[in-house]
């Protein structure tokens, strides 16, 4: 059974159908991508999974628990963590404090942990390579690094399922490279990673399964190779990529 199972989710905003019966799964220890043009409904789907948006129909099952009706913080306590496309960092705090808040809250609902809070935070800072800027206020960081801070903050909750919303946007090539190896490492640790990303190269490189969304509907699912070969996908999405070069 998949770690995360999203089945038949529909969301309507007034007359506009943002998602139409979308089903997506993410397996433990693997990287799954969710791609599609702007406005395809990727972030809305993330919001449905994390409870920030109530679906009109459909269910979200995490590790066999139906979490569709739970509030966002209760879902998080089932092991769900995410980052945001529009950064949601705590602007009055430093990088270390941003991660610390998450680790502190996490410890309040998952008390049995090894090591002190400070050690845990330091471990995450080391893992994500934020050591140089650990005590800088986050507003002073470039976007690319802010995205890493968001990831680090999500990791502080020891998630089973990690939803990353365009984590590589704003990063340069070297940063993306480091980021890709970090993602692989997370998957190796058994985390199910669901990735929304416009950097198709990154997606094809690291992900085992790719879901393609277009106009709120699921267009295709498969391995990167299958998806790349899918004519519908080429027309809707990857076609543009070829034109660009």
């Amino acid at each position, binding site marked *: 059974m998949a770690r995360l199972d999203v089945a038949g989710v529909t969301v309507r905003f007034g007359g506009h159908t943002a998602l139409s019966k979308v089903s997506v799964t993410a397996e433990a220890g693997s990287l799954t991508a969710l791609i599609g043009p702007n406005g395809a409904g990727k972030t809305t789907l993330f919001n449905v999974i994390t409870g920030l948006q109530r679906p009109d129909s459909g269910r979200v099952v995490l590790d066999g628990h139906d979490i569709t009706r739970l509030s966002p913080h209760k879902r998080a306590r089932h092991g769900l963590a995410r980052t945001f496309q*529009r950064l949601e960092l705590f602007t009055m705090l430093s990088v270390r404090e941003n991660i610390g808040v998450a680790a502190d809250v996490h410890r309040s609902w998952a008390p049995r942990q090894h090591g002190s809070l400070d050690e845990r935070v330091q471990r995450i800072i080391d893992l994500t390579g934020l050591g140089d800027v650990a005590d800088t206020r986050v507003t002073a960081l470039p976007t690319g690094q802010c995205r890493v801070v968001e990831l680090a903050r999500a990791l502080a909750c020891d998630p089973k399922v990690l939803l990353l919303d365009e984590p590589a946007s704003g990063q340069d090539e070297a940063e993306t490279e480091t980021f890709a190896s970090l993602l692989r490492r997370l998957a190796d640790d058994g985390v199910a990673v669901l990735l929304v990303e416009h950097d198709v190269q990154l997606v094809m490189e690291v992900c085992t399964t790719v879901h393609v969304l277009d106009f709120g509907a699921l267009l295709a699912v498969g391995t990167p190779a299958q998806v790349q070969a899918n004519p519908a996908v080429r027309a809707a999405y990857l076609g543009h990529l070829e034109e660009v070069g």
Partner: protein
Amino acid sequence: MDKFMIFTFVGLSTSAIYAVISSGLVLTYATTGVFNVAHGAAGMLSAFAYWQLHVAWGIPTLPAALLVLFVLAPLFGVLLERVIMRGLAGTTEATRLVVSISLLVAMIGLAQAVWSPAVGRVVAPFFEGRQLTLTRDVSITYHQLITIATAVVVAVCLKVFLTRTRTGVAMRAVVDDRPLTLLNGVRTDRVAQLSWALSTSLAALGGILIVSSAGLNAATLSLLIVNAYAAAAFGRLRSLPLTFVGALVVGLGDGYLAGYLPQDQRLAGLRPAFPVLVLFAVLLVLPSRPLRTHVRSREYFPAPSLRGAATYCAVIAAFGVVLATTLSGPDTIAYAKVFAVGIVALSLVPLVGFAGQVSLCQLSFAGIGAAVAAHVSKGTLLGVVTSVVVAALVGGLVALPSLRLSGIYLALATLSFAVVLDRWLFNLPEIAGFAFFPSGSLDIQPLTVLGYTFDTPRRQMLLAVVAFTAMSALVVALRRSRYGRRLLALRDSEAACATFGLNLVGARLGVFMLSAGMAGLGGSLLAMQQSSITAADFQLLSGLPLFMLVVAGGAGFVSAGLFAGVGLYAALPLLPSLWSGLTRVQPILPGIVGIALGRSPSGAAADVSRSFTPLREDAVVLSITVAGCGAWYAVRLLDVFGNPTMWVGMVVTVLVGLGAASRRRRPAGAAEVIALEWQGVDEPWSASRVADLDRALRLEQTRMSLSEVAHGAT
């Protein structure tokens, strides 16, 4: 049945007035995002203006009313939009709320300054004494008929205006998506201006219709807005038709309570409190909203350093000791309020500054603390602790229904709670042996700890100083703690906090209770200082200036508590002694401070504190300055001169010390360090500056010549 009909008409005419007033409120909230707490005050000013024209100057009813409705009120609305509201775009909800509360306070102050409350004024209803007789026992006055007809006309006109006219459609478009409307060529500022003009006219209409029954009293009329909130809350502050339904419920309820409530002193306050109870009920059933994501705000409250906090606490303690040992008895009682009410102000720092929540009823919690302390304490520490606990519990109960809704509803709930206490609960006679203020006032014994009784004004003041200093230290510790960072995180992004498992309602409830408890402590200390208190000491309208000054001082800084306490109970009362003409302006001043400082949301306290940095960092000058102040104090204790001389002497000493420290910091002739991006702007380019810039940009290999830089060549 006849009685029923009569009170139905009474209720309908009240509904009509609420409908008119609250539709104006909804209009501005929906089109400009400003929840105008001062909306009722605009109606109040209009009612006074109408009285001035009609009664005082003898202009006939119709021209006087038309002049107010179609000239004065719209002009005032446009003025508000141009001068104040336009500057609020892109500020947080709390800031906008502060500004509109400041307006409310300033407008009440203005009305009282122009039309002295000591003079009785009456406005007669339209067609006084004439009525339409329906059956032998049932009749409806012409005034009631006109009121109901007006509401119907307003409803129809608003409907036609908003759906059939180009401007009305533009107004609705602005509600949906302001930037998009702007891109479509609608001048959104014009739309905002129009909606302020229109809504002020609606407030004026409501004011003129209600003044004959409600009476011409600035505070009463301004607080009618609370009844209109209840109606507006039905429509989630956005839907006009539902707002009209809400107005019907509130108005008819009011009418029937007037007719059928048994004559009992205990229930007498229920009728004025009824709209507020409706509001609470609506808050309970309103659906939760989506979690708020990050809001951009210009506010920044860094954590205080331990050394800074220690210095601050030492300065307060010294200040308190100097006050307590130099003031006369009555003055000591008056100025001790600085610290007791200062604790109430300080209680807003964790809530407003750290957690970004708004409470407008801190002084009511203080009142509860005071009453409980008086009833339970008998001068024991346990009594004070009980008052803190009770205030915290009541705070939790008040906040709970609205914590899952957005900040504006919490503000509404707290405002309403204060009104319920003012209008009803604080005035209740004894029920089952308990009343908050039996026989109007309440006496309280001074505190005794370990056999030591704080029974003189001086001891009371020292007690308050110690408590204030301890609470300041507590707030600093909170800001530096994990819990404090959690609150700051919550203020920034609810959505992010929820996604790592933070129970938002729980976290907010915690800080709200903490803050209410602190306010309770402040209240019980205040009661002990005054030794006898009344409900009037804790009214909503006395609490609002406190809230404004805390925000104006910088709600996230611990010094905001002192700023508000000193401002309200030391600086403001001293003003008239400088120039007696200021007496009339005095009530308006906090409002003006709030309006002005709404534009600099991080507040003034931080600026003041920053300006002292040179002095703090210069140990030599600092020691001399402190010694100088000590000398002034010592000579004062010898009764060589009075308090004014001592204070002026101390202030001059500190200013001289500050000047000296600043000069020592930057010796004459030393080159000023100019940030890279300002080089070439703050001073002309020089070869060495260009070299510095190249080095900073790692451009050694591609160095440009100075002339190329000067001519902008590439």
